[in-house]
Structure formats: C-alpha cells, structure tokens
C-alpha cells in the first residue's frame, strides 16, 4: 500500500515537474490569448512599426505599449506576472523605469516567458547585457554596423552598403513556416556573434560570407572582429524551460519602411516587389510566441503486457508496454503530432533499451519490449529534441526487481540427476538400515 502511495506521489511529482515544461506561461488549453508588454524608446516607434504590431494584434495579442523609462512599468504584480511576453524595442535605454532591470527580465525568461529584443547601432549596455545573458554577443564597437559590399540592397542612392539584403535563413519549417521565403530580408543594424558555449542559441538569419562588422563612418584601421557568416543578424534562443527569445541587431528590420520596401539584391537582376521582412517576422513571431512548434506529451502509460494497471515495480524479463501521447499546438487547438523518430529509453546510468515508438497517427506513440535481465532503478526516458520544437523530456522512475524465491522454474531437466541421486540415496539408506538391523 505504501509502495503504491509512493508511486502515486512520484507520479504527481513527475507531473508537477513536467508541467512547467509542457505549458508554462499560458493555460495548456488555449495559449493564444496573451498579453504582451512592448517597451519603446520613443512612442513614434509605435506608428513607424505599426505593420508588425498590427499583425500581432490581428492574431489576438493584447499589446501594452509603454515607454521604457516609464516609472510605473512592472512585469509583476503581487508575485504574478502581468504579461506573457515582452518586446524590447528600446535599443538605447540605459535604465528601465519602474521595477524592471536586468535581473527582472532574466527572471521573466527563466519563469517561462518569451522575449523579443531589437538592438541597433549604439545599443545600450543594458540591452547588450541582456543579449549576453542569452548567449549572444553584439559587436563591442558601439558604432559598428554590418556592412556587405556584395549582397547589399540596391537602392537609388549609392549608400554605404549597410542595408543588407539577406536570404541566408535557417532551414526549419517549424521556425519560419512552411511557406518558402522568396525575397531577401532587409536588415540594417548591428551584427552579433553566437556564443559557442551556448548550445541553445540558433542563428535564424546569417550574414553572407562577404559581410563584416565595422563602423561605416570611420576608416577601417584594424581587421574587423566579426566577419563573414559568423555574423548573425537575427538569432533565437529556446531556453531549457522552453521560453523563447528573439534577438535582432536591427530595429528597422521590424519597421513599416522595410516591410513595404522593394528589394533588389546587388548582383542579382531579380527585383522583388516587396521585401520578405513581413513574412519572415510574422512567421518568426508565431514561433517565438508559441503559436507553432509547441509539443506536449500527456498520458504516459506503462504496464505489463496483458495488464491494464501500472505496476509499482517490474520484475526482470517482464514484457511491458509503454505509450505516450504527443500533441502539437496549431494556433487554435492541439493536433496529433506525427513523426517516426520518437524514441524511448529504458535507462539506468546508460540506456539498456532504446526503441523507436510506433505511432497510430492520432498522437499516440507506443511500443513494447522486454525488461532487461538487470535489476535496479530504471527510468523511462523520452528525450525528444527537434529543431524548432519545444524539447520533450519525460522521465519516469521505476524499479526493476529480481525474481522472488518462488518465481524460479521449479523442475528443470538438468536437475533430474540430482533428484534421482537424492531419492536413490534415501531409498538405499532405508534398505541398508533394514538389512543391517534385521539380518544377522
């Protein structure tokens, strides 16, 4: 009984532990209804970038525009977060107003909320610091911009080639949507490098190999610190708790001007009527705000073959069934997630069993296998990490015991000689005793 309770307690615990991973900031049933705080340097940005904001509002987000140095702003009220996401369109702010500071923003992310940061040239130390904490280092020269003399956007005036037409996207339908982005994206701003120690940050939009980062107004005296495709223009981070962060080196990337602009990449004869900024950012914001690429795993079940209830403990060489249901969020509702590469491990310090789960195409993944001939405390582990998707990391502890004393096979053929020897000995002894005693 107590063992059962223990398992129940354990299950509850596993659920409470995994729940934040599955559904953090919003209710797991209807995540679209979200409140977003937008912090601006200047309220003019609200109108100059209205297309981007409108696209968000049209998708059901409540945007709350505030000046970054507004003394009344705060992310929390009475210990609860008032917002589900934060957009920082305030590249030059040195200090936020109200109770927001670097630690508050990082706590906001660490408690599972999303963040969009747009930096720009002359980005403040505060913005840089937030980016550093997310694994992204902006060029240290405050006046630096990304310059590209081969793939700049052709414009009427021969500029300094800081408006870049970039089309080096990450290859992921989950992050950028299934529709192909035809036209290049216009970018003008500061470049950044991805910290190689951080395994969670991804380059979504990279600069071309001929790009470099330097101050266009001064003469280039030293070799630039950031060059080529090491420069990332737009990066995303999916934290371990599945909070998503978008970091862009350009605020004008989001602007109406770039959204509407015609674009022609230098060296290319093809003229696009409209840049892809709108498509790129709409799709990317869908991903950042968890409208896409969000998985949940529910109904983890395991039992012996032929039984329905989950046992508190398995025995070695038991046949067991394992199943889990995985759903993907499609903006409006949860739909079955279909893949053929979900694997389960039966793990004790190293995987003893590693099996790919079969699926019924309705979200249920299942398999059956034999418990290895090893006792110990095992875990059912599903570690599903795919580019763009939230990571599924399920683990469920289950002890495996050896045979009980009465579970071994009773009569094995190899033992018959011994049985024979024992019984013939007994008979012989009896006969011998009788003969010895009564035969004088």
């Amino acid at each position, binding site marked *: 009984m107590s063992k059962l309770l223990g398992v129940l307690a354990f299950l509850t615990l596993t659920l409470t532990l995994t729940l934040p991973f599955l559904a953090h900031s919003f209710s797991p049933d209807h995540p679209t209804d979200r409140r977003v705080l937008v912090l601006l340097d200047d309220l003019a940005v609200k109108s100059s970038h209205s297309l981007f904001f409108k696209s968000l509002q049209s998708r059901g987000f409540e945007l709350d525009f505030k000046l970054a140095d507004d003394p009344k702003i705060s992310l929390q009220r009475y210990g609860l977060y008032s917002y589900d996401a934060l957009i920082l369109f305030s590249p030059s702010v040195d200090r936020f107003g109200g109770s927001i500071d670097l630690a508050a923003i990082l706590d906001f992310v660490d408690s599972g909320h999303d963040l969009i940061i747009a930096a720009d040239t002359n980005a403040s130390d505060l913005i840089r610091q937030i980016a550093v904490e997310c694994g992204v280092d902006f060029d240290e020269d405050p006046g630096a911009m990304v310059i590209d003399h081969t793939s700049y956007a052709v414009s009427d005036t021969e500029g300094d080639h800081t408006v870049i037409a970039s089309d080096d996207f990450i290859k992921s339908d989950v992050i950028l949507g299934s529709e192909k982005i035809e036209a290049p994206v216009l970018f003008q701003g500061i470049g950044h490098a991805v910290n190689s120690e951080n395994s969670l940050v991804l380059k979504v939009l990279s600069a071309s190999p001929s790009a470099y980062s330097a101050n266009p107004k001064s003469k280039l005296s030293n070799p630039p610190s950031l060059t080529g495709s090491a420069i990332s223009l737009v990066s995303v981070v999916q934290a371990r708790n599945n909070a998503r*962060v978008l970091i862009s080196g350009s605020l004008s990337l989001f602007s109406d001007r770039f959204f509407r602009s015609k674009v022609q990449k230098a060296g290319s004869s093809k003229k696009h009527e409209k840049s892809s900024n709108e498509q790129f950012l709409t799709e990317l914001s869908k991903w950042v705000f968890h409208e896409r690429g969000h998985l949940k795993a529910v109904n983890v079940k395991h039992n012996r073959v032929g039984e329905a209830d989950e046992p508190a403990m398995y025995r070695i060489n038991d046949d067991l069934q394992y199943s889990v249901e995985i759903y993907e969020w499609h903006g409006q509702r949860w739909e079955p997630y279909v893949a053929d590469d979900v694997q389960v491990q039966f793990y004790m310090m190293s995987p003893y069993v590693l099996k790919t789960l079969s699926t019924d195409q309705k979200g249920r993944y299942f398999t059956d296998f034999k418990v290895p001939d090893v006792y110990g405390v095992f875990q059912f582990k599903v570690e599903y990490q795919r580019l763009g998707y939230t990571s599924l990391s399920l683990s469920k502890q289950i002890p495996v015991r050896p045979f009980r004393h009465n579970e071994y096979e009773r009569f094995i053929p190899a033992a018959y000689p011994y049985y024979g020897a024992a019984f013939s000995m007994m008979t012989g002894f009896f006969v011998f005793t009788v003969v010895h005693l009564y035969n004088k």
Partner: protein
Amino acid sequence: MVGKSEPLNGTATAKTGQSPSPSPPPATPMSDLLGNFSFKTLKLKTKQQELLIRVSILCLVYVLAFITRLFSVLRYESMIHEFDPYFNYRTTLYLTEKGFYEFWNWFDSESWYPLGRIIGGTLYPGLMVTAAIIYWALRFLSFAVHIREVCVLTAPFFASNTTIVAYFFGKEIWDTGAGLVAAALIAICPGYISRSVAGSYDNEGVAIFALLLTFYLFVKAVNTGSLAWALGSALGYFYMVSAWGGYIFIINLIPLYVLVLLITGRYSMRLYVAYNCTYILGMLLAMQIRFVGFQHVQSGEHMAAMGVFFLMQVFYFLDYVKHLLSDSKMFQAFLRITVTCAVAVGGVALGVGTASGYISPWTGRFYSLLDPTYAKDHIPIIASVSEHQPTAWSSFMFDFHILLFLFPAGLYFCFKRLSDATIFIVMYGLTSMYFAGVMVRLILVATPAVCLISAIAVSATIKNLTQLARAKDKVSQTGSAKGASSTKGSSKGSIDQSQPFQRNGAFALLFGAFYLLSKYATHCTWVTSEAYSSPSIVLAARGAHGNRVIFDDYREAYFWLRQNTPPDAKVMSWWDYGYQITAMGNRTVIVDNNTWNNTHIATVGRAMSSYEDEAYDIMRSLDVDYVLVVFGGVTGYSSDDINKFLWMVRIGGGVFPVIKEPDYLVNGEYRVDKGAAPKMLNCLMYKLSYYRFGEMTTEYGKPPGYDRARGVEIGNKDIKLEYLEEAFTTSNWIVRIYKVKPPNNRW
C-alpha cells in the same frame, strides 16, 4: 539444567523493561537466606547448598549482564546507535510489517541508487528474525511493546544468555567454579559490552552468543561422542551463520582444532561423530542462508573444513584397516601409502577446483584478517574503517584489564591439565587473540575465550589458595562462602610442605585476588558508562561550566530531509551516513554502509574530491538532488568528513586515476589552512564543509574561520558555490545539506 530454566524466567521480567530483579522462584529462598543467614537452619545438604548458591550467583550474573548495558538508555534515551544498527532496525521494521517472505525477497530501491540492493540476499537475517520473533512473542503475550524497544534491548538480552552459555562452557572445560567465574567475567567484560550495550542493535550482539553456544556444544559433543550434542552444535552453527559473517571463524577453527587432535594422536570415535555430524549438518543448514549459499562447497575459505572432513574418513578407514591387519609393519606401509595418496588427491582436487574457477580464491577481507598490512595496500575501503585498524596495546588493556594478565596464567593451567576440551579453549584463545591484534573489532571474538581462560586461572588459583588457607584449620569447620563455590574437587588435600607463613601468605594472596577482581568490576563499570554507552548519533560534550551539552544535529538533519525534500530525492553523502539517511531521513542514497560496490563508492569519492564543475557532471549523471556533508569545525567534532576526506581521495583514486592523493597534500602533510594544496582548497568537499565558515567566529580570541576540529584557521574563506546552493545547516553546523541546482536555463 535447573539453573537454566530459572534464569529464563528472570529474563522475561527484565525484557519487559520492568525492574530487573530475579524472578520469584529463586527469590523466595533468597529472602529466607537473608532472613536467617545460615545454611544449617535451612537444613540443606552440602550439595543442595552448593546448588542453591550456584543458581543464585548465575541469576545475579544474568541480571547484572543485562542492567550494566542499560547505561546508554539512562544517559540518553531508548534509541538505536551508530550506523549499521539503523539498517538492521529498518529491515526489522520491514520484517515485522510485511512478513518474512516479503523481507526475504525485498529489493530495496532506496539505497545504492540507481543499482538498488537485494536486501534479502545480502544480509544475515538472524538478528532481524530473532528480534521479530521476540516482538511477536511479546505481542502474543499481550505486551504492547514497540519494535524499537525490542531492538534496543536485544543485545543486552543475548549478552545475558551468553553468560549462561559461558557458565556451562566453563563447567565443561574445567569445573563449575570456573564456569561461574567465567559467567561473571564475561557479563561485564568491556570487550563484549562495547558491542552489546542497549541500542547497539548489531549482528555481533546475537552472534557472540551463537558463537559461544556452537563452541560449547561442539566441545560437549567431542567429550561425550553424542550425536544429539553434535546436532545441537550444528544448529548453533546454523544460527551463527544466519547472524554474522564471523561464522567463518568457526568453520576454520573447528577443523584446525580437529586437525591438531589428529596430529597429537587424540583421534577417537567421539571426535569422529562430533565433527562429521556438525560439519555435514551445519553445512547443509548454512546453505539455506541466501547470502551464504554455496560458499561452503565453493569458496576457498571453507575448504579447510572440507579437507579435514575427508581426512577424518581416511583416519576412520585406517582404523578399520588396522583392525583387520595384524601385522604392524604392513600397516605402517599401508598408512604411508594411504596418507600420501589422500593428501595428493586432496591437493589435486583443490588445484583443479581453483584453476577451473569452481572454488573461488580467498577474498580480500580474508587476506586482510591473516595479514594486517594487506588491507592498507590493496583495499582502502576496508582500511578506511576505524574498527578495522590494527589494535593498539592500550585498547587491549582498556577492554580486558586484568584478564590480560590472567590469560597466560589460564593457559598455564590448561596445559597442565590437557584434555580435548582444554586444547579447544587454548586454540580458540590463541587464534582469536591473533585476530584481535589484527583488527580492533575482533577483540569481541577473543573476549569469550579470554574470559574463559582467565576464569580457569582465577578459579584454580583461588581454589588452591583456599585449600592452603583451610589446610591447617581443618578442625574448625568455618568454611567461607567464597570457598564453598569450589569445594567440589577437594582431592588435593595433602598439604605437607610446611613453609612458613603459608597460611598467612594464602590469605594475603586471596585478598590480593579479590582486590584485583573488584578493581576489574570497577574498571568495567567505569568503561561501560564513560566510553561504550554513547550512541554516537547524539553527541555529548562538557560545556564551559561543566554542564552537559547535547548535539542532536544528525537527527535534526535527517528530519529536515524527511520533511522538506521530495520523496524521491536522491541524497549523496559519504557512505558512512547512508544507512542513517535511509532509515531516519527516508530518502534514497547513492552509497551506504553495505560497501558492496567499490566503483559506486569511488564515484562518490571522486565527486567529493573534484572541482565543483566536474563534480556537477558526476552528480547529474547520478541524478543527485542533495549533498550531505558532516562538518565538525564549529563544535570540534573530529570524525567529520574533512578528516575522512583522504580516504575518499584514496578510494576514488583507486578506481579513477585522475584523482591523485599527492594533489591534496603539501609535502605529504594534510592541511586545510593557508598552506594547503590548491586542489584541496577548491575541491567540492572543502567548499561544502567551509562554505560561509570564513565569516564565523567559533572561539573567543581566534580569527573568524577558525576550525576547532583541526585547530587551524581555514585557508579559503571566500567560497562561492556555482552549481550547488546551501539548503540546510543544523544548529551546530555538524550536518550541512546542499541542493544541486538544475542546469542553467539559458545555457
């Protein structure tokens, strides 16, 4: 047999925790005896008087053995002591709650995470089953006792029973007088008390009883040649095997003894019956214990017994042939051939068995028993245990007191009156004294032998002296009460050497003997109350004003774990505390005191002696949630983790060569102050022990961060933890618990 039934009643009274006084039957004559102190008025014959005194002495000894072990309960409380007893208590609890079959098949997933431990197959169940049977019996008799009380008092109860066995053993090898003295000596001998005070619920508590019982019954069987006694000896051996791994001493000592008898030409039919019956039945019975299994036929340690068994058959056969052959010359030739063949066959069988792997070679533990230096070089995990250290002279003195001097005297008497029985006790005494010198804890095994042999010395001396004292005084019939206990064999009545002052000298010597014995009693009581009654889970110290200060930090920490951590949390600590954490904290541990998996312990040792980031990877791979360290720097408690740390390094380095002992030493010296090795100052154990300690003033007039256990100012006062955070520190800082942080969210 009369003496045996009455003390059992006396035990039942004492067991229930009521006033430990002798039971009514012997008490009635006793009160009469006190009322008008004269045997004549009772109109008893000498034999009856003697019996009465003997029984009363035994009853008193029985009660004394019990109550002298209750100091710990009176000083502290009725609690389980030390480390291993907590495991025994936990398993007994499980046994009484779930029944025997669940216990027998218990797979414990809470220890040795993630490997688990098959409890039923890796313990000696004798102690738990004994305690459970006592518990069930008391329950059946409507005594509503808690299982903990039963466990606390099991060891004293069995110590009392041991005194009875010692009496019969002494009677068997010498006479009743020696038996009585042996019972009295063993009742209060510190060497035995150290392992059998109330609360010391360990295997040894019942095993010494079983050991002595087996030996007694075997000697009895050899003396009588009776199958029944041999069967009794086999059963005693079975109980011993079920209770303690020390049975290996029996299964080697008895064959050795038989071999000595064979060599000295003392082979007899009695010996043949006794040994064969004991060995065969004992072996078959011992195989029923899961932990022992087939070792009796498959392990090198048990092969001596089997070899002697076959040798006995050869002797029997030779006897038979001698009976057939009348020609002694032919028999000599036959003897030579047979013995050579038998030894050759035995040698070949052993060689083939060992080579084919059927017979396992001697284990390291066995080697370390024979050779005191073996463990230090090869098995650090054995050498790291303080009770496995070679014994210092002072502890012999401490544990045996005058017995140490009486022991050689007793040997002298044994050699003077050599018989099968005295040969046995001599061999038992000599071998166990050797082992007691090899390991501190084996003083326990030597104690019964030392007590018995000393008892022979005391008894024989006093008997001789009283005879001298009474020799010239034959006319006056004032037999002293003390002399009455040894009046049985008064055959040596001829005192004709008319030395001057002989009688006075005898009186002086008698007085000296009583003085020594009373000193022994004082010493034993003092040692018991001062040294051996501390539970070591609760520490006591003297405060500045001479008052007692109690440090209850261990239980505070374990209760914190129980109340504040998730039920499936895994706690990493050095293995010493594993049993206590599972028993009291009810949390899963990585390693515990059952040191069956050296690699797992070495992994923990490696984590403790690595830098924090390396340790973090190890801890993540073991799913560790909490780390527990024991720290004595504030209280001056010296057996803490920093003082054990070099063993962690050695054990860790034994498996993982990246850990090197010299990295933690400066010029071969172990220090924690400013001059300590850089790796020492930054390893996980140092950081966890001294975290926030640098800002604390422990002693007036000393700088902050002054470590009272080692008497130095620590070398690294500015300790930052990156991957762990302090979760709990007990009021006297003895136990510190840290939580392992989850991996960084954004990295």
